[in-house]
């Protein structure tokens, strides 16, 4: 038995979530932990060198097709090696990369798969995954069938990352990947820097889909102005084109850690919450008392934004004199 951790890296850098995967793999007690680093020629050395402590074995797999951590090629490469070595668990991150390769690997192996897992447990019945459903409103316990290998992706940020340094010499393994997988990596693209950097703000007033109308942003702007805060938002507001992406707090946007975070009409999907939960003080206003945002907030107000926020703005102005 062994547990494989698929190291996540981008553009030559190991991503932090890999440390979380190692910590979970270690705690599982299902055998030695192998870190697998896949990538194009020359892409695996630097990430392999940055692996945290707790790893028993490091395997580097390089191939032209794997350039840019190509999900189609990663699934194909892992499938062949896993079919042979039969790790009990293949652990990945429920990230943009994991959402690309993990379920395809499971399909290729005919293996059980659980994605976006908060915690993974091992008992007599095999593996049990705990994950959320209905946008975080309920939690589900999911049983993975007994199988030679199971594939699990973990929600980034749900676990404390392993620290330290692996200090294990990396082996290299020849990849058995077809030269042509039907998908080719072209380039990494970084969103152009905008006018504001929300990560530098001490106070953020953040709006979600609860605002309903771009004109209603003014209500939030007034509050931000009164507080001397910066305006940010959740994903749907960007999807609708009401605010530019540079103001998006979330996994695909920016991770923020302001002193004060005021969430207006944000339901609290994990993609958002993960990126703001470490703020010093979180105050949420939402009309739905069951909104998941209240589970990460220090203070909550259930109510209509358009009633509460103008009053709050007024009270702030009065407090400032």
């Amino acid at each position, binding site marked *: 038995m062994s547990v494989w951790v698929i190291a996540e890296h981008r553009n030559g850098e190991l991503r932090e979530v890999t440390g979380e995967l190692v910590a979970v793999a270690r705690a599982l007690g299902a055998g030695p932990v192998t870190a697998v680093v896949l990538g194009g020629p020359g892409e695996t050395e630097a990430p392999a060198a940055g692996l945290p402590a707790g790893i028993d074995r490091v395997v580097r797999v390089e191939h032209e097709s794997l350039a840019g951590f190509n999900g189609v090629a990663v699934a194909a490469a892992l499938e062949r090696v896993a079919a042979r070595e039969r790790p009990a668990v293949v652990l990945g991150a429920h990230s943009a990369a994991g959402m690309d390769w993990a379920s395809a690997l499971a*399909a290729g192996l005919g293996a059980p*798969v659980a994605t976006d897992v908060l915690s993974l447990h091992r008992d007599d019945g095999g593996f049990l995954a705990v994950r959320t*459903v209905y946008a975080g409103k309920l939690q589900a316990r999911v049983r993975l069938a007994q199988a030679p290998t199971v594939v699990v992706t973990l929600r980034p940020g749900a676990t404390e990352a392993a620290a330290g340094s692996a200090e294990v010499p990396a082996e290299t393994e020849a990849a058995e990947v077809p030269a042509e997988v039907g998908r080719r990596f072209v380039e990494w693209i970084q969103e152009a820097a905008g006018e504001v950097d929300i990560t530098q703000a001490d106070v953020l007033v953040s709006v979600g889909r609860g605002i309903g109308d771009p004109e209603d942003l003014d209500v939030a702007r007034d509050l931000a102005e009164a507080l001397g805060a910066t305006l940010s938002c959740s994903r749907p507001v960007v999807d609708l084109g009401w605010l530019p*992406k540079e103001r998006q707090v979330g996994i695909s946007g920016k991770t923020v850690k302001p*002193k004060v975070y005021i969430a207006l009409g944000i339901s609290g999907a994990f993609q958002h919450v993960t990126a703001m939960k470490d703020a010093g003080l979180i*105050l949420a206003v939402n009309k739905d008392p069951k909104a998941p945002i209240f589970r990460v907030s*220090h203070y909550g107000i259930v109510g*209509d934004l358009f009633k509460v926020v103008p009053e709050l703005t007024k009270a702030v102005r009065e407090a400032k004199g």
Partner: protein
Amino acid sequence: MNLAVFVKHVPDAAEADLRIGPDGRSVRAEDLPFQMNEWDRFALEEAARLKEATGGSLTAFLIGPGEHEDSLRRCLAVGADRAVRVWDESFPTLGPAAVARALAAAVGEERFDLYLCGAQAADDGYAVVGPTLAVLLGVPWAALVCRLELQDGRIVCDRELEAGWFERVELALPALVTVQTGINEPRYVSILGIRKARSKPLEVRGLADLGVDPDEIGRLGALTRLEALEPPPPGREAEMLEGSPAEVARKAVAVLREKGGVL
């Protein structure tokens, strides 16, 4: 260009008090309004735009009982030429691998140039069906596509990554993409539009019609089995500020000053 889009009809959990059914594994759906999965709306819109731009056909697939046909009618109203609904009494308890297998069977011998799915479903949030279906169909895929462009015989897509990064990839056709929200602006589908689309064909198939062995579906369905639903842990348990808007505003200002160190 011949296109296939896969959609799911899901409960709208926003503002809902979700109640767990007596089996401990299901949500009491009778309390909830249903709608097309948010991500699938974007996939459908992208498919419809591609069809409008290139000609060809668009076929919509859905797994679900008769009540879920509203989502297929939407597809037909937006421009699908044909819709296929697959249903079997054993489906409600099945995990995503079985769903993908049934969808692959529904596609059957037909070949499409591009298959589109939403990146994930709003209810179970697995994000598994898309890539699994691609493997079963034997085509390359890209997940979380937020921009898509057709370039002679292949597509160039941008995948949305974390922290403001994107990845540009090229896919040889036929291929499958899972679509991220925000890729386009889904159009409004009017009731008259849906009524007019009633003349378009909507086929209903069972597992037997698809020539799929129910045992195989059962086995795939059991790979990932929902044991129990439960309320989430309370987390931080926000202290709720209560009263009239003016009162909560006053309390909030006190909090911002004393605990937040601002003001």
